[in-house]
């Protein structure tokens, strides 16, 4: 750490490095040495499966062919054609879009509101509130599911009990084709807004207080200050949270898996969950095609959002 500047002129002194090219060679070797363990694991367990999933999606492999995954029948786009014609997949795709379209904006609004309130509105107990709002993020989805299934129980659940106090006869939340999806969305917002909140808190640090004071002196109200001063500055942060939340919600799997098993009547089945189901039935080729469809949609949406990010951001 404490390298004396006087050492600088003695360039030729070090034994390990006799010339510039020797140093470059050492750097080259060190670079590869440091990268190699990662690279091996990454190529085997990430890159290779990514490539292979494309291959699998064009084949018809089932459980028995696992040991020789390449001795398979090529069916080309048959699996994709099957997916598009499959009414359950159509329902799953619809549910996934429903989840994203309603869930993402809700999550971002709640996260932003909490971040603004914590950052500018209050001075005391900030860390306490921040931690409290973040706790659902830390929690295992399975624990969440256990508790929420209980809270949403039509008879002995806390939600319907509280609704009963004000004279509302609550529905059978998870057992109703109408209310099961809103229940899962509410749970997802509750569970995920903390992540966005933390990132927004980091982003809000970049908003200079002098600018807000100046706007205030000019007579701008809280909403105008938000709209015209805060929002343009945190725009990249908003888009980052939007992209990551959208990607996460497009993979909507755990909530229906542990809460409803996709029911009632497939009303909460998601594209990812249907993929998992097909996989567990041994339809590996079909499952690979489904997962690749999800990937393509995610890639397209990400590309669109990034386009906005680079156009309007800096």
């Amino acid at each position, binding site marked *: 750490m404490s390298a004396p500047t006087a050492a600088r002129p003695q360039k030729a002194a070090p034994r390990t490095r006799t010339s510039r090219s020797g140093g470059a060679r050492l750097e080259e070797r060190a670079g590869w040495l440091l990268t190699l363990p990662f690279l091996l694991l990454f190529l085997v367990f990430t890159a*290779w499966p*990514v490539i292979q999933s494309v291959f699998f999606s064009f084949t018809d492999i089932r459980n028995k062919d696992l040991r020789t995954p390449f001795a398979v029948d090529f069916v080309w786009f048959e699996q994709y054609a099957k997916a598009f014609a499959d009414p359950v997949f159509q329902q799953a795709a619809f549910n996934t879009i429903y989840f994203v379209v309603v869930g993402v904006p809700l999550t971002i609004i709640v996260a932003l509101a909490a971040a603004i*309130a914590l950052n500018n*509105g209050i001075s005391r107990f900030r860390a306490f509130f921040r931690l409290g709002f973040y706790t659902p993020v830390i929690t295992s989805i399975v624990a969440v599911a256990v508790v929420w299934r209980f809270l949403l129980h039509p008879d002995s659940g806390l939600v319907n009990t509280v609704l009963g106090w004000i004279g509302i006869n609550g529905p059978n939340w998870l057992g109703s084709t109408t209310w099961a999806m809103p229940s899962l969305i509410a749970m997802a917002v509750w569970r995920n807004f903390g992540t966005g909140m933390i990132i927004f808190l980091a982003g809000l640090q970049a908003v200079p207080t002098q600018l807000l004071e100046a706007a205030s002196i000019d007579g701008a109200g809280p909403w105008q200050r938000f709209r015209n001063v805060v929002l343009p500055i945190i725009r990249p942060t908003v888009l980052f949270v939007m992209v990551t939340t959208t990607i996460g919600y497009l993979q909507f799997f755990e909530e229906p898996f542990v809460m409803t098993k996709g029911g009632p009547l497939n009303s909460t089945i998601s594209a990812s969950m249907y993929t*998992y189901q097909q996989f567990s039935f041994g339809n590996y080729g079909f499952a690979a095609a489904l997962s690749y469809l999800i*990937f393509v949609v995610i890639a397209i949406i990400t590309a669109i959002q990034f386009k906005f990010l680079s156009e309007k951001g800096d």
Partner: protein
Amino acid sequence: MFQDTGFRRRWWLYLLLTVALLVVVTPFVWMVLGSFKTSSELRQVPPTWLPEHPTLDNFTSLFSRLSFGTYFANSTLVAVAVTVGNLLFCSMVGYALAMLNFRGKKVIFALILGTLMIPGVVTFVPLFVLVANMGLVNTLPGLILPFLVGPFGVFLMRQFIMGLPRDLVEAARIDGAGEVKIFLRIILPLLGPAMATLGILTFLGSWNNFLWPLVVAQTNNSYTLPVALALYSTGQNQTEYGLLMAGATVVVLPVLVVFLIFQRHFIQGIATTGIK
């Protein structure tokens, strides 16, 4: 947006936040209290808040009737191994990508960025085939190896190390230190906030990971906590809520404690590692 952050002028905001906090935290309080109730009390209409006859039976049943000790050990081993692997390997690559010049560097970085956005669901089919062919289904290595490194960790480390002063490295090189020594003695001690952030995120991610363990752990003694809990809670038998509440509490409390200890570094890390 708001100027005056005085407590008295902002009482309404504190009230609002407190109500919101109650809504957010109620499920936890409910869960922890529920774990001390009997199954019949949990089924009672209207529901009770405090346990009428507090009991530890649920917790003892976890260990006597289920192999909760095994699930707990599996979850801990996997999470610790995955976290250590990510911290070590990702910081090494992060240093190489940020401070060293070597052929193939750009290709590697492009590869990492490219896979950053690929969701787990895309790879689990071929990954399962791979792990099955390696004979690692139902083993801890099968749960650990695919997550030992990840593109996110490398990206985070690279961004953070790029922010460190280059002079430190140059000076050490002139002093004759090798790159590995520079990494271990100079860079590693400076990675505190980034390590805390990546460590917490990786540990939480692994502890709560669900899809992969569900796919790869198919026998009782290879289950992790979430898998065991999920399978138990969606089984055919009459749901035993008391047991589930206790199990859920056991899943949440360790990570809550880890987070409470490191949260200051975590928040600081988020602000300085460029995740924004």
